């Protein structure tokens, strides 16, 4: 079979490189380790791209150890490659590559350990994308987590960093156990761990067990995906993690949580939930909308740039949940494009924040006011990235957003567009505000404000020197350029439609995995879209976002008084809920699981 040998490589090549580097930890120099790690990452990315192009024509099913299923019972572990899973693996490799290039000057004190952690992180995320086995997914989930916890707590001198990592680790570990309990429930019902087999065995019947298992698995992965009310850890972890790690967290890791929910839903659960799609849709739309608006509001209220970007990620995760919630192939295609576009842009923004930290030693927006006016390259890239975040054509985010909106309109849910616009205005507005403040020195900052309510201090992550770090700008520029390129590839929307159709084809998936069936890929219908209308709307929204950002730094912004009271109060309350106390986070988490379960139980009965 064409390309069959390639399938395990995106996982085992990075892991092998990690093992070799760990063995040679004391014996290789930093530069050699850099080159080695970058080469392994490039290999994984190239193989993933090749797999994507092969699986466009024929999805691949790979059985480790050659244990093909017998009479529909799977004995071993399978990888199931379709264009979406392979593309996500490629995106993961690309982001890791950007992070590695960015961090050429980072982490000088820990030798090759950093590379080992990054490579295992990469292998784990690729495996998480490609696997077709539920328990194997849990294993990669944990592998991802173990490397992410360590990377996140890298700055052991900072109490915030340790506390943030602890919060991150504790909530995500509970998430992993939720997922495992859900898997155990499904195993108890079906006696299977392969997703295709479970999906087939569950049949058309949604009872308490199926609902609970779905709620546990969904909640567990939503913790990773930072969806309300499971999102609390994200801002803490992002605020404290080293910049290249933030690039990976926001750029891909969080999105993979949602990817897992989508995969599990369409392969395992859809048979049982098909009669209740509209109920499920209603619940998920509410969750997504709350996440999007909550994240956006808090994002706009932040002055710590990394925290601001983190809450922007929360907001965009809400939009992505909406993309999934519609439960339509067109929306799923839009979601896939949106994830790619958003990941690239968010990665670039975090890299630019890292450059600020590298040069100026802080990421506080007010403190940095006017301090970065001599950085023309950063200024340009930051502005372009802000435009991308707002969803301006021709960015990948625009493509994804307009597809999701089309799909929502077809379902008679036109109000979803408004959620997208509000989220874009809030998050992109905040980014434009930072841009104007920091890079242009616009607006006035009072001395009282400068002191701030609370001292934000960040340890410098790098050594001083190199005021214009070429490779850091290079990484950011490439990511932004790719985000534009994604939106310009002709026919990409159609490809995405076909891929989404394939991902939702449960019967086809089961037949390919369990019965060795050789089915052709069904092409999606070419759908003519009214591009002009969405082009115009997105442009208007971008302009509005920019205007909103500028308004926030103008002297007309109501700092005190009647109009700003409610907003200030809301932001203050919301910020207070993000207390940094792990007990609160776990209480909210428990609430979330209980609420999901009870709501679904009521809706379905």
């Amino acid at each position, binding site marked *: 079979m064409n390309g069959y040998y390639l399938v395990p490589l995106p996982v085992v090549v990075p892991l092998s490189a990690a093992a070799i580097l760990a063995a040679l930890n004391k014996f290789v120099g930093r530069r050699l380790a850099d080159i080695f790690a970058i080469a392994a990452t490039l290999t994984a990315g190239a193989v993933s791209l090749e797999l994507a192009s092969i699986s466009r024509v024929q999805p691949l099913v790979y059985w480790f150890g050659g244990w093909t299923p017998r009479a529909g019972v799977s004995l071993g572990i399978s990888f199931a490659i379709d264009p979406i899973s392979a593309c996500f693996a490629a995106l993961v490799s690309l982001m890791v590559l950007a992070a590695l290039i960015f961090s050429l000057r980072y982490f000088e004190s820990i030798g090759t350990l950093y590379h080992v952690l990054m490579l295992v992180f990469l292998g784990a995320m690729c495996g998480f994308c490609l696997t077709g086995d539920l328990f194997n997914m849990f294993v990669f989930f944990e592998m991802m987590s173990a490397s992410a916890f360590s990377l996140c707590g890298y700055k052991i001198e900072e109490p915030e960093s340790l506390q943030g990592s602890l919060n991150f680790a504790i909530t995500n570990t509970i998430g992993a156990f939720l997922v495992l309990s859900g898997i155990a429930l499904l195993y108890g019902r079906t006696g299977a761990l392969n997703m295709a087999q479970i999906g087939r065995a569950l049949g058309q019947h949604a009872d308490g067990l199926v609902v609970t298992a779905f709620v546990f698995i969904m909640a567990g992965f939503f913790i990773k995906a930072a969806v309300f009310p499971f999102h609390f850890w994200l801002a803490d972890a992002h605020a404290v993690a080293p910049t290249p790690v933030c690039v990976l967290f926001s750029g891909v890791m969080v999105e993979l949580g949602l990817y897992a929910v989508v995969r599990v839903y369409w392969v395992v659960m859809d048979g049982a939930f098909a009669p209740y799609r509209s109920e499920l849709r209603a619940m998920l739309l509410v969750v997504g909308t709350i996440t999007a608006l909550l994240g956006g509001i808090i994002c706009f209220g932040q002055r710590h740039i990394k925290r601001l970007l983190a809450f922007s990620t929360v907001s965009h995760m809400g939009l992505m949940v909406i993309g999934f919630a519609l439960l339509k192939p067109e929306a799923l295609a839009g979601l896939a494009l949106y994830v790619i576009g958003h990941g690239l842009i968010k990665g670039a923004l975090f890299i630019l924040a890292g450059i600020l930290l590298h040069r100026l030693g802080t990421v506080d927006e007010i403190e940095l006011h006017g301090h970065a006016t001599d950085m023309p390259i950063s200024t340009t890239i930051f502005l372009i990235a802000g435009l991308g975040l707002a969803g301006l054509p021709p960015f990948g985010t625009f493509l994804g957003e307009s597809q999701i909106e089309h799909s929502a309109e077809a379902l008679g849910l036109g109000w979803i567009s408004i959620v997208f616009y509000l989220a874009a205005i809030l998050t992109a507005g905040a980014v434009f505000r930072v841009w104007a403040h920091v890079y242009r020195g616009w607006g006035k900052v009072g001395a009282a404000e400068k002191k701030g309510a*609370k001292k934000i201090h960040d340890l410098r992550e790098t050594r001083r020197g190199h005021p214009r770090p070429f490779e850091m700008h290079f990484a950011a520029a490439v990511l932004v350029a790719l985000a534009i390129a994604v939106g310009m590839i002709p026919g990409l929307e159609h490809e995405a439609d076909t891929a989404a159709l394939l991902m939702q084809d449960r019967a086809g998936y089961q037949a390919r995995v369990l019965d060795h069936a050789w089915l052709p890929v069904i092409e999606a219908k070419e759908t003519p879209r009214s591009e002009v209308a969405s082009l115009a709307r997105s442009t208007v929204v971008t302009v509005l976002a920019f205007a909103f950002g500028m308004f926030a730094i103008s002297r007309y912004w109501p700092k005190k008084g009647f109009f700003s009271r409610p907003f200030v109060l809301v932001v203050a309350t919301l910020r207070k809920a993000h207390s940094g106390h792990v007990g609160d986070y776990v209480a909210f988490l428990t609430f979330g699981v209980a609420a999901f379960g009870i709501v679904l139980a009521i809706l379905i009965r």
Partner: protein
Amino acid sequence: MMHFLSFFPYAVAAWLFVMGLYGVVTSRNFVHLIMCLAVLQSSTYVLLLSIGYRWGAVAPVFAGPPVVGTPAVDPVVQALMLTDIVVEATVVALLLALAVQLHKNTRTLNPDELEALEG
């Protein structure tokens, strides 16, 4: 008795999960919290073990080729539990490392006394 026992092990699993959560939420010490997480995890052991159990069956370790008619319990859940145990050990190790360093910096392990990350 049989009826009671047909559900009791599962209820124990749920109970341990809930107790683990309770410990995590109310904990005043991160080391205590980590051990509560271990209890929470043991819920998954109990659940997996009870799902794979079969009345009167032997362990899946045979002297030779299995004789027809002697049922064995499910070996797959046991393999999963082995993985689960490794996960427990590693998670606890990482969390403890974080807690030790946190205490070096702040002289406290009480989440109530840490305010660094508010807002």
